[in-house]
């Protein structure tokens, strides 16, 4: 198992937003987390990537215990993530947004900057190249010199994924990568996620668009009120009583 959580949970002032969840993702696969609004999916991501400190349980990535590590250290250990809402710097170019993505793999410091050391030059070049590679991988390299604010929503989603890629991750946690884009674009993003897996990345995504999830995921976990109510292959989960009930109860508003 590449990623593993045991008993992972957090309580916000009495509310068990995530309740003792055991979860595993196998290397080179796509795992999806679904569930109604407010089910705790994003919070689960936040727990795994160090944005929240868990009240219970552990997180392990590739054998390394990440529990209680601050966010930036989980990235160093190979955990990359995107957010539900893009928060790229709109006024900067795509490339400028991306270059810093490789920072976590570099060492140059203030003195390297002042004395323009060979290390700084090398790492700047490396970061730039890695950024371009990631953009190319995500199919948005031709937008490198455009400002983020001037490109489409879908392109921004791709840039966010490219930024995660630039950190050289082992696993990518994608929080609703296809929110707010049309069906055709969703298909394109699904293709990108498949390409990630083909290139030996591991993906864990949260997504409301069931068509996308069903077509992509090797396995699905369903969260409801912070609890895992089902887990398994897409077909199993789709026919699971508890899942259908949870979605009906929450008011089915999905496109399918």
């Amino acid at each position: 198992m590449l990623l593993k959580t045991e008993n992972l949970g957090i309580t916000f002032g009495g509310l068990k937003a995530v309740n003792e969840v055991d979860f595993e993702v196998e290397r080179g696969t796509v795992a999806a987390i679904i569930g109604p609004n407010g089910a705790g999916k994003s919070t689960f991501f936040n727990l795994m990537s160090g944005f929240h400190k868990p009240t219970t349980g552990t997180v392990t990535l590739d054998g390394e215990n990440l529990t209680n590590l601050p966010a930036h250290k989980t990235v160093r250990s190979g955990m990359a993530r995107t957010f539900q809402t893009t928060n790229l710097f709109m006024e900067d170019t795509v490339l400028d947004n991306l270059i810093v993505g490789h920072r976590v793999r570099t060492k140059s410091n203030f003195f390297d900057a002042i004395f323009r050391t060979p290390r700084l030059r090398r790492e700047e070049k490396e970061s730039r190249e890695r950024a371009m590679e990631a953009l190319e991988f995500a199919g948005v390299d031709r937008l490198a010199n455009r400002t983020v604010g001037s490109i489409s929503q879908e392109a921004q989603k791709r840039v966010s994924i490219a930024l995660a890629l630039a950190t050289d991750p082992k696993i990518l946690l994608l929080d609703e990568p296809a929110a707010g884009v049309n069906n055709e674009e969703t298909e394109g993003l699904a293709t990108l996620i498949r390409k990630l897996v083909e290139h030996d990345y591991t993906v864990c995504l949260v997504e409301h668009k069931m068509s996308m999830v069903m077509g992509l995921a090797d396995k699905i976990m369903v969260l409801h009120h912070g609890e895992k109510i089902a887990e398994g292959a897409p077909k199993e989960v789709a026919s699971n009583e508890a899942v259908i009930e949870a979605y009906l109860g929450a008011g089915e508003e999905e496109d399918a």
Partner: protein
Amino acid sequence: MAALSKHWKKIALVVVFVISLFVPVFVQNDYFLGIIILGYVWAIATYGLNILLGYTGQLSLGHAGFFGIGAYTVGVLTVNYEFPFWPSLLLAAIASSVLGFLIGIFALRTRNEYFAIFTLGVGFVIYLVIERWEGLTGGALGLIGVPYPEGIGPIQFDGPESIYYLILGFLILTIYIAWSIANSLVGRSFMAIRNSEELAAATGINVGRAKQLAFAISTGIAGLAGGLYATYIGFLGPAIVNVPTTFEILLYLLVGGMGSLSGPLVGAFLVTTLFQFLQQFEAYRLVILGPIVVILIIFFPKGLAGLWAALETRIKAMRGKGEMSGDAGASEEPAKEEAK
């Protein structure tokens, strides 16, 4: 096109540099030369604030306090202990930087407006300590007779002209530091934090440590400016360390343009010069400046540098339309329309 404008920028830079070298030749009047020298000193302090506020997005309102630490380090060491100037200046920058680093440990646990208020408090406490600690700082009376720097080899610092070159040298050094930070992965980390702390952390940046570094650099440069101020003016009173000075530096930065390389120099230079002309209206100074600040923030949030950049884009766009040949510029411009 970009290459061309870069080319012009280089030429402009050289021209400005050459002019700055000849300033003492043209400006024979010591009073006017003094205004320019002080403009440079405040520009240095503003570059310090720019690294924290402009690059990293953290508003510190304690900047004058760190300027004061630097000024009084030089003042106390040279006047009370007859220490030579140069090591005192070095200590001034180090002391304010280290103090900034230490205070940063606590201050940076707070965010946004809380950080601003916390640092405002820090600045005020520094002012109080300087004002009350009479034995060391001379209290309200201040320190008199901060000497000019000792000569270095054949160079003597014995009048406004030589001091002018001294401070010009430090200004250029500061601009170089600001430039090299902005054009490095360190600066990119700072700017990522300014954009979004969350996203910065998610790309693996140690947000706390980067902010701390930005704070230490910022206060170190403030201290350097303070030390230079002390030697040029020769007299130190606590008023210069007080909170209004912070707001003046902030004003220079807002006028010039946050986050830009030329902003601090342009802003500090323009506003301090303006201050001098308004001096006869001392009492009304803030009445005049207040509305200017408000207007600036509302209409030109990026200061003069932002205004300039906007004009440049507009001119480029106009040229692009004029040519209508649809070459180099064409790949860039339609992009922006698509978005709207």
